[in-house]
């Protein structure tokens, strides 16, 4: 194969895509902001879902599929979700063969635990650091192909723009070496974006610092459609920090943790009372709204703050060590208390974006030749993601994107090598000029403080409860920040190892996507999954059972909508106080 495929992003989706490409003999240039082993996938704690039925509970891929669609409040297109769920067990087995240290049953089989929104134990896990273990295994496999010369890794390089030919096809990228800040252009026949989510738009979240969403924002500004941006998951349990909100895994509840606050001087297990069918195992959007109600409306939060107890002190300490050590360690290190003895205090935090770049069932974006996989695309979770489904979605999307990119390049009439060299020279020159312009910014605004301001507005107005007047004010605020952005001062620092200039560039991407999220939320006058408006408290299938599509224009996003494919499961009311109504395949 003479063609070249570029993968941007060294997390689970990017590494899986790379592996699939290299395995079929395809040469790959792999770019990552950080060494792949430090990608945000390492933060995934609880596990990865697959209906392997290890516990003999009668789980099936159909049940997993139905839970996912129901949990996502029917906003996901069903055919790709079904295909992913059906592939999930084989993905687990593949990762198992790569040596991932999954927890085991006494007989030596892969163990499973329960996560929210499911009645079955179908979450395979490696302690409470499942994402870390999965990515290490994939990183090793990719290193193996690297040693065979099929993969060129560019770690600590940043994606800056797409090179589009005169037919509008993606033909390469410009990138920046984050040490020298020099700019290069890399031609290709297809590009796969696997660049993760945009949590940093909310200032502090459970996300890593690289999760600015800027790569997706760049693609969006160059014409790629962004879908369902307004669907942001708020995780019910995190611990506060000035630098970040650290996730306390849902597996804590899955393994027996209970959520409570004091009411009339006694512990009140409000999730168990309000949702008897699922109890502490309700999905994240449900748990988060319940916590909000208890803390904000009923003013019963711990110490009068928006905090609740997450309690595992009644569990066997040995079992805690075996299954939850990673996350308990984080709590001990950053809070100082031992959760084996004292109930943890946690509160909700921005965690995941269900929305992302629009892709077709082949993972291709609206730009031909540009694919997307993982959290940077929108395909698998609808209006709310179930715990344990992000890892399977990232791996599955990577498995689809790799081979589909090869298929696409095979259909091209011209390879990148036959394109005029000026196409690449011009792209490089344009990016260099933009980079130079950033260095000349010598105003009085500090980019980190602007970012903090953006985060505060987004958290206050575009998270758990959304009101139209506040969304409107937030959009106006974002536009004000965009004006003030022009007055940023990046200082007189040299290019070498400079961190302000790249951050300033990412901030523009964050501001741009913040408008997509905020305006998307303002327009969607209903409540569905993670999107909740007291003014419109019910789901409205008649008007809003549709995917939001945002397209870039310099004056702001332009919105359109497309119907959702509900070919397998008819929408029904989503509730967790009673057991979910049973559906049947082909029924």
């Amino acid at each position, binding site marked *: 194969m003479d063609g070249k495929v570029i993968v941007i992003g060294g997390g689970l989706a990017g590494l899986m895509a790379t592996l699939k490409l290299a395995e079929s003999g395809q040469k790959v240039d792999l770019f990552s902001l950080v060494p792949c082993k430090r990608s945000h996938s390492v933060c995934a704690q609880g596990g990865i879902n697959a209906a392997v039925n290890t516990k003999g509970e009668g789980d099936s891929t159909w049940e997993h599929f139905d839970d996912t669609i129901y949990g996502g409040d029917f906003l996901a297109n069903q055919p790709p979700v079904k295909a992913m769920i059906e592939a999930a067990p084989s993905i687990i087995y593949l990762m198992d063969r790569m040596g991932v240290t999954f927890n085991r049953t006494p007989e*030596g089989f892969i163990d499973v635990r329960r996560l929210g929104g499911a009645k079955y134990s179908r979450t395979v896990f490696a302690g409470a650091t499942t994402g870390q273990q999965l990515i290490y295994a994939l990183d090793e496999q990719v290193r193996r192909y690297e040693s065979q010369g099929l993969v060129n890794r560019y770690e600590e390089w940043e994606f800056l723009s797409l090179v589009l030919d005169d037919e509008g096809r993606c033909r390469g990228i410009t990138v920046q070496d984050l040490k020298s800040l020099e700019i290069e252009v890399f031609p290709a026949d297809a590009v796969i974006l696997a660049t993760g989510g945009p949590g940093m738009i909310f200032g502090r979240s459970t996300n890593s610092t690289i999760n600015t969403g800027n790569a997706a924002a760049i693609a969006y500004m160059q014409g790629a459609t962004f879908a369902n941006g307004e669907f942001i998951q708020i995780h019910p349990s995190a611990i506060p920090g000035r630098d970040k909100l650290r996730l306390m895994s849902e597996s804590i509840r899955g393994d027996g943790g209970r959520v409570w606050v004091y009411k009339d001087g006694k512990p009140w297990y409000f999730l168990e009372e309000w949702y008897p069918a699922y109890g502490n195992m309700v999905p994240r959007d449900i748990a988060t709204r319940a916590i909000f109600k208890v803390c904000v409306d009923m003013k019963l939060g711990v110490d009068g703050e928006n905090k609740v107890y997450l309690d595992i002190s009644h569990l066997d300490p040995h079992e805690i060590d075996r299954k939850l050590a990673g996350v308990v360690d984080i709590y001990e290190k950053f809070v100082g208390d031992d959760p084996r003895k004292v109930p943890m205090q946690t509160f909700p935090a921005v965690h995941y974006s269900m929305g992302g770049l629009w892709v077709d069932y082949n993972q291709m974006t609206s730009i031909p030749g540009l694919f997307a996989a993982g959290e940077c695309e929108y395909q698998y979770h609808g209006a709310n993601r179930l715990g344990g489904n992000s890892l399977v979605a990232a791996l599955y999307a990577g498995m689809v994107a790799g081979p589909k990119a090869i298929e696409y390049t095979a259909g091209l009439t011209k390879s990148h090598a036959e394109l005029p060299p000026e196409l690449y020279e011009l792209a490089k020159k344009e990016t260099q000029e933009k980079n130079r312009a950033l260095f000349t910014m010598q105003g009085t605004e500090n980019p980190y403080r602007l970012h903090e301001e953006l985060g505060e507005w987004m958290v206050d107005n575009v998270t758990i409860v959304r009101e139209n007047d506040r969304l409107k004010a937030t959009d106006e605020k974002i536009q004000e920040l965009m004006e003030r952005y022009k007055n940023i001062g990046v200082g007189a620092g040299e290019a070498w190892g400079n961190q*302000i200039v790249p951050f300033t560039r990412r901030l523009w991407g964050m501001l741009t996507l913040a408008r997509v999220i905020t305006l998307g939320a303002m327009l969607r006058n209903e409540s569905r999954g993670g999107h909740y408006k007291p003014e419109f408290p019910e789901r409205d299938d008649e008007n809003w059972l549709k995917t939001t599509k945002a397209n870039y224009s310099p004056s702001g996003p332009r919105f359109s909508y497309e119907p959702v494919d509900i070919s397998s499961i008819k929408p029904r009311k989503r509730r967790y106080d009673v057991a979910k109504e049973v559906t049947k395949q082909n029924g």
Partner: protein
Amino acid sequence: MGKEVTLIIKRCKDPNSTSYWEEFRVPYFSKMNVVSALMEIQKNPVNSKGEIVTPVAWDCNCLEEVCGACTMLINGKVRQSCSALVDKLEQPIRLAPLTKFPLVRDLVVDRKVMFANLSKVNAWIEIDGTHDMGPGPKIPQKIQELAYELSKCMTCGCCMEACPNVNKNSKFIGPAAIAQVDLINSHPTGALQQEKRLQALMGEGGIADCGNAQNCEKVCPKGIPLTRSIAKLNRATTIQSIFGWLGK
């Protein structure tokens, strides 16, 4: 003026420049860590003398001690700056870059060599392919629990920094890569190709360069039993060198 935190930071603008110490005072917040102190400098890049300076460069990502990025010397001790809580540190807090890796800028160093070392020892399991072949071998709980300890290595560089045998004049691959050989060799499938990894450990910069100082285990933030792996592989490489040439 509220309570403040004083930091003295070793700075250097590039590998060819001379380094210098610079003092900063940042606002104190309850339960703050070293990373949030550095973030305060980004938001207000002014040193103790009141001069506007370039904010301090450092590496970080996950901020919860699972990615390994933010490793540095904090009051002379190698550790991650995200899990270094200011309340538990003596002030002024002195921050310096790792010394065993090439400097990039300020607190940023280049740890590429650690990934290259994983390549040297073939730290991967040779699977036949990614096509569906069902599950891997069954694994006893006890074996999984031992393997899990080793598989938590974040390639952060603490063990390299603390090891006296990792230095400019040595090619020693260091404890992290050796422990990964132990991890992969103890997996039933990994064991099928274990000779290749043992051979790599017997080459230049291999396990023979370990001087048994045992500093590595003391500084490992994840408590990985590195010396146990080294001892185990010392025996395995000895056996391999005796019997290897017999075609065993």
